[in-house]
């Protein structure tokens, strides 16, 4: 159940470790080979969702919110490649997932993203990426986009409380769409990340924070009307959100992005639990999360991973990428940051221990690709 201030006021447990690796829940993870965004995509996803117990069980009659990953401005490509082939969740994967959810009886499907520094409709953002939003909107009944980088169509921001008390913030003020849904899906790209080591289903949720509150152009007392700038102060902690939003719990904690970003991600995933995690690595990049990272390279791993627990799903993704999901700070891909998986496991969201995770479909060894072999990249 989603916890908002009205529901669980005072329920915060002030940063205590509620869970341990031994008791963190596990869930099945489906892995599939999918070498292209062509005809094989839809049946592949369909089989994967069946392997997880069927989409109908999750979405039938429900309002489904899907957070996609459209990081960075749409005007940046890796070389001449389309954005969906590199660092954005592929439009074909989005459309296919939406289609299957519609078929499974979803009542309403909202596609959510907080595009870089704009309150423009997501559809306009997609057009700049050279995508056709109608292809996605028409893939099922009652599909809509919402830009969650600001208040959007809501009347007020929703305050979502972090049930375990929060690592950085006790609660987050978010666009209403993250509260006004029955099912929350993270539809992510399989990538490394310069700050957080990896960006999978959990890190994708960093982008649910509105820049009107968590962006560098946020107001001092109240959210700004329009989003301006990125979420650099979540990275560095150089300032606080507006007074209207919950303040940091420990202002004396490290002001380092490698410390803060993984913790904020776990806070968010706890506050807005992920009901279905889908991470596509049909085509992607290695070495970082976007073209602004020096040395990123296109890759075609031809793999999709899905699960109902984001930690187990991300753990399998890490293994597919050639990383050890049990790695902690200092070990690849977490050389300069804490492990989001470890932090999530510590608060009982899910296990990262592969020996406790049931994997269905294709085995990890069959789809493992060498993201780890490319080495870590640095921001310019």
């Amino acid at each position, binding site marked *: 159940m989603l916890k908002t201030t009205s529901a669980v006021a005072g329920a915060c447990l002030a940063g205590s470790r509620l869970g341990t690796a031994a008791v963190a829940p596990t869930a099945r993870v489906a892995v599939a080979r999918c070498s292209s965004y062509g005809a094989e995509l839809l049946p592949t996803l369909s089989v994967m969702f069946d392997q997880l117990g069927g989409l109908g069980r999750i979405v039938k009659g429900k309002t489904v919110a899907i957070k996609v990953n459209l990081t960075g401005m749409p005007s940046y490509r890796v070389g001449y490649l389309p954005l969906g082939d590199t660092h954005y969740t592929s439009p074909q994967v989005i459309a296919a997932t939406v289609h299957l959810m519609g078929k499974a009886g979803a009542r309403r499907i909202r596609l959510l993203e907080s595009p870089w520094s704009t309150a423009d409709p997501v559809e306009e953002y997609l057009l700049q990426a050279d995508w056709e939003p109608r292809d996605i909107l028409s893939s099922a009944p009652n599909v809509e986009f919402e830009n969650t980088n600001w208040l959007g169509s809501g009347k007020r921001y929703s305050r979502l409380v972090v049930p375990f008390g929060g690592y950085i913030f006790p609660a987050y003020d978010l666009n209403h769409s993250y509260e006004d849904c029955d099912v929350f899906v993270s539809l992510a790209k399989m990538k490394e990340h310069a700050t957080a080591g990896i960006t999978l289903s959990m890190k994708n949720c960093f982008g649910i924070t509105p820049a009107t509150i968590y962006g560098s152009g946020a107001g001092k007392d109240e959210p700004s009307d329009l989003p301006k700038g990125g979420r650099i102060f979540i990275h560095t902690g150089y300032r606080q959100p507006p007074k209207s939003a919950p303040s940091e719990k420990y202002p004396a904690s490290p002001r380092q992005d490698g410390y803060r970003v993984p913790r904020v991600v776990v806070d968010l995933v706890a506050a807005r639990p992920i009901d279905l995690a889908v991470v596509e690595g049909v085509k992607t990049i290695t070495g970082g999360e976007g073209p*602004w990272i020096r040395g990123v390279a296109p890759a075609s791993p031809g793999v999709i991973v899905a699960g109902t627990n984001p930690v187990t799903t991300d753990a399998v993704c890490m293994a597919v990428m050639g990383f050890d999901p049990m790695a902690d700070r200092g070990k690849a891909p977490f050389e300069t940051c804490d492990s989001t998986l470890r932090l999530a496991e510590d608060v009982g969201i899910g296990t990262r221990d592969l020996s406790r995770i049931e994997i269905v479909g294709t085995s990890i060894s069959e789809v493992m690709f060498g993201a780890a072999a490319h080495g870590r990249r640095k921001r310019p």
Partner: protein
Amino acid sequence: MDRERTPMRWPVEWRDPSALDALKDTVINCLLVERDAALDPVIARAGQEGIRVVRPGAPPAGVTVIEGEWPGVKLSESGTFDHAAAGPTGVPWIDSNGWKVRLTAALNPGTQVWVNAAPRKPRLSAESYATAVADAAAHGGRWIISLDDQLAAGISARTPEALGRWKRLTGAAGYFAGRNEWSHYVPEAVIGIISDFAGRNEFMSHELLNLVTRTNQQYRIIVKSAFSQSSLNGLRAVLYADEDAPDPGLRKQILEFVKAGGMLIAGPKWGGFPGTREPGGDHPRYVLMAYGKGRLAVATPDFEDPYVVANDSMVLISHRYELLRFWNGGAVGSYFTAAPDRKRALVQMLFYAFILGDNRPTVRVAGRYRTARLWTLDQPAPRVLDMEIEEDAVELHLPPVRGYAAAELEV
């Protein structure tokens, strides 16, 4: 229009007439020389060599001089270079004189527009000078070539480094002087910006041009007094920028345009609006109405922030209809024109910043084209461009380019 004059502000330190030798093999043919008796020998020899000499405040007939900015990415006070890198998540501010050149030409038909923009640093790169030339010339104007003190001294002393920069600068000037036919091309546009561009409308209308330019939305300048039936041909939208309501004739023609499928974006003082409110057409700053086959977008408060108006106009019209779309262009400016017979089109691009890494630029050009060639200032001949054909557009994959490039397309 005679665009063949290439002006240069003569450095006051160049008092020896032999300094005119630097102009050999260049297209510079008009000098702006200060009133200084010590420069009389220079003026005399320039006359003998057929080079026109004028005073800085007295340009030749048919020329309008505008005050411009040094074009490029605006640096903060800490900036130490005359160039900057474009990042992935921020758009740097660009100073460009292109919109001013176009506006001046629209307000003064038949005039040649010269841009007076002095170098703003003690030393500028060859790249920066070439950009100064291209920024004005790509839009149909001419930059009054003006040298920084170090470059002027270096050319006098014939240092190889200075001569290299001089060659690059004059090469860029020569490039544009040799393409006079492009000056007859007409702007391709999605939106028309209508104003008298004067008086109390000056700030908003000028800033709108400045800011719409930055979005790379292709626009047509429509001067109210020169409005005709054909002013709206081919446009998807018009932005009425003025505070006062249009006269009945203009109003009628614009509404006819809307009725036929166009869009009008206007402030509340435009007057009464026909049409019916669009269901679900919520916008924080506009009321959206349907009228005939078209749409009206009426700002609820008056236009206040031109930046917001310019960006809103992009979304109100929709990026779907943009004529040019860039990837990896960094701080890019553009001007899209077509030959009068529409068999050829020209996309002139100004890259004001370095582009990070090996991310090569791509430009998507709306329309159906068969071939594309790329012109750059450092190559005497065009190169065939790698082109990806889409349904109603082509994607041009550019090699790494710096400063300026022009894609010439054929239908």
